[in-house]
């Protein structure tokens, strides 16, 4: 019998931000505990206090370099409320929507092709030097080309609507600061057919992987949970920019529905645990033990009644058919859901690009000032809540951010433990490939740990194996 051991995966790779996993093995090499720790602290909620309200959408987007548009828009929606604007001008709303669809598209494409594809193409236990985008491009050059060009398309949409591909300034309290010139519209329309075709192929790729690996997908990091997202106010359709809150149980029972997001704090409570900088939200009425929930692409496929674009809706029906219409609890099915959303975004962008409102000049609305504002959006990784209070001098006095990865904290921890138990328990030798299984489960959520703790820099993967006395048994380091 060996001694108890602690395995540490630090940091987790091919995710955004810094995190580590600790796995405690008992004397029989059985997994005793497994946790995803978020080890960085950033403090945006505190240092935004005192800043001026119109600076907020520009400052808080610096939380992230991958999904800054989500924070930019969620903050802008909160500032709309404070500026007393309940209805944007058509041009402002449609420009913001276009920005958001470009953002979701580029972020999902980045995740699926650049971060997750090496695992899916080469296998979870493939040699570490094989698991990167360059090997994907070498093996599947056309796939790699499309990945780069699809992301470029989304990034250029962001640039056209926000002024820059990363960290722009488009959304301002009460509206937008630009419209879309005809020549830019025509540039995007010129390749929208190609983007649609490639998005359909990407859905097919993710679907085929899911169906061809039915047994793996069914068991890998999968477990029942509640799900929450915004849905469209009128009919419960998927709406990534605006709507009301809906939550379902793992069996599809409605937990709450069409609740205005300004009441989020009546529905959700955030729990704190000593070993992580990331909080653990749960549904107040159910409690922390069973009230935790998941958000993100798969959650949205579960909660949405339908999708209002035909190609994505047909793809949704295929996904829902796998579980006969009940919520899909398979963590890896997130990839399929993610590609359905890419297709949806491309369809929505086509709709918008044909809308003359994008060339409108009525950009900013005004209203009667309020002291409090809440903005909620469906970010690429899931539901995103921004909540602010502003004093009579226009200075922020309160800020609360609940980001997608925070909503998924309990889910990711459960996925880590599930995979650790299934793939590491009882093993005398722990290989790097085995540890990658744990990371694959985390990656399926496409977590943004920077956003969630509100960190930057190199992320060398360091895995250290300790005995019960804290002695280092083995150590491996791998650069991203």
């Amino acid at each position, binding site marked *: 019998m060996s001694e108890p051991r602690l395995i540490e995966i630090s940091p987790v790779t091919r995710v955004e931000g810094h995190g580590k996993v600790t796995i405690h093995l008992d004397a029989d090499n059985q997994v005793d505990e497994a946790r995803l720790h978020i080890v960085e602290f950033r403090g945006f909620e505190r240092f935004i206090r005192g800043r*001026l309200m*119109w*600076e907020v959408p*520009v400052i808080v987007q610096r939380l992230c370099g991958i999904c800054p548009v989500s924070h930019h828009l969620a903050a802008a929606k909160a500032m709309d409320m404070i500026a007393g604007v309940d209805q944007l001008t058509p041009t402002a709303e449609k420009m913001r929507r276009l920005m958001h669809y470009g953002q979701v598209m580029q972020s999902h494409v980045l995740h699926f092709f650049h971060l997750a594809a090496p695992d899916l193409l080469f296998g979870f236990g493939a040699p570490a030097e094989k698991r990167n985008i360059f090997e994907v491009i070498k093996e599947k050059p056309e796939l790699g080309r499309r990945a780069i060009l699809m992301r470029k398309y989304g990034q250029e949409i962001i640039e056209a609507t926000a*002024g820059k591909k990363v960290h722009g*300034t*488009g959304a*301002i309290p009460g509206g937008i*600061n630009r419209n879309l010139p005809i020549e830019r519209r025509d540039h995007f329309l010129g390749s929208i057919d190609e983007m649609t075709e490639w998005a359909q192929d990407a859905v097919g790729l993710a679907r085929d992987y899911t169906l061809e690996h039915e047994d793996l997908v069914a068991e890998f990091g999968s477990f029942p949970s509640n799900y929450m997202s915004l849905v469209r106010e009128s009919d419960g359709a998927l709406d990534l920019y605006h709507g009301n809150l809906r939550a379902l149980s793992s069996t599809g029972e409605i937990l709450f529905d069409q609740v205005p997001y300004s009441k989020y704090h009546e529905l959700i409570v955030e729990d704190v645990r000593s070993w992580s900088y990331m909080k653990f939200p749960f549904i107040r009425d159910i409690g922390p033990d069973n009230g935790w929930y998941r958000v993100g692409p798969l959650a949205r496929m579960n909660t949405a009644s339908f999708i209002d674009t035909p190609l994505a809706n047909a793809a949704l029906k295929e996904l829902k058919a796998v579980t006969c219409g009940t919520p899909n609890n398979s963590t890896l099915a997130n990839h399929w859901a993610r590609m359905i959303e890419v297709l949806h975004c491309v369809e929505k962008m086509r709709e918008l690009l044909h809308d003359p409102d994008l060339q409108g000049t009525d950009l900013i609305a005004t209203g009667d000032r309020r002291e409090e504002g809440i903005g909620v959006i469906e970010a690429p990784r899931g539901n995103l809540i921004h909540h602010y209070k502003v004093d009579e001098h226009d200075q922020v006095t309160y800020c609360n951010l609940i980001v997608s990865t925070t909503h998924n904290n309990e889910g990711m921890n459960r996925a880590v433990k599930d995979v650790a138990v299934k793939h590491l328990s009882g093993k005398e030798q722990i290989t790097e490939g085995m540890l990658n299984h744990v990371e694959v489960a985390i990656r399926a959520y496409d977590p943004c740990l920077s956003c969630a703790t509100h960190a930057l820099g190199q992320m060398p993967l360091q895995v250290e194996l300790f005995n019960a006395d804290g002695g280092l048994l083995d150590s491996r380091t791998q650069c991203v």
Partner: protein
Amino acid sequence: MSGTKKETGFTFTIDGIEVTAYAGQTVMEAADEAGVYIPRLCDHEGLRHQGSCRVCTVKAGGRSVAACTQPAAPGQAVENETPHLNKMRRDLVEMLFHEGNHLCPICEASGNCELQAMAYRLDMTETTRFPYLEPCRALDASHPDIALDTNRCISCGRCIRASEDVDGKGVFGYVGRGIHRRVAVNGENLADTDAQVTDHAISSEVCPVGCIIRKRVGFVTPIGEREFDKGLIGHEIEERRK
């Protein structure tokens, strides 16, 4: 202030370029008219010259002088765009960044900021050599229409001169000495003064950085249409020679 033009002027050279000047004109005034740009921060059209930032330092007759206050002289040979002078200017600008808290990525003046634009023009791209002083300065948002973020102040004094000489008010003034000298308001806070958003001192053209803020208009100008999205600082003067 611009001198009174006479029928006939005189000539001198800046970097070998012949420039016509009139009695009473400074080197900078004559250079501006001739389409030769001399970098500057504390000087601003319509305000009296101060000569304090020294970014406009040129060599005339072998001496380093402030072009904004130095009278033009017949036959003078002025050096402006030399590696030595531009390095000195870059050092000055770099130190201005270090003395305050200049967070360009989140500043609403970004793209319209003369300090930022000057850093671009002077090619301030290398890793900084000086320690940031990181002063602790509070934001004054007490006024209903104006905010003052002195984290971004470079003590150019343009607001002081505009308020005194154009608005006739004296809302702003210097306090402290040496490295501790800074711009302050004449009162407990801005709300205590008679500042109005329509004052020349409050206009976006007077404050070269993002210190004096007109409330609720930040980021209204889209990226691509801001002042220095159109070209390097000074390009509009240099275009006069083309």
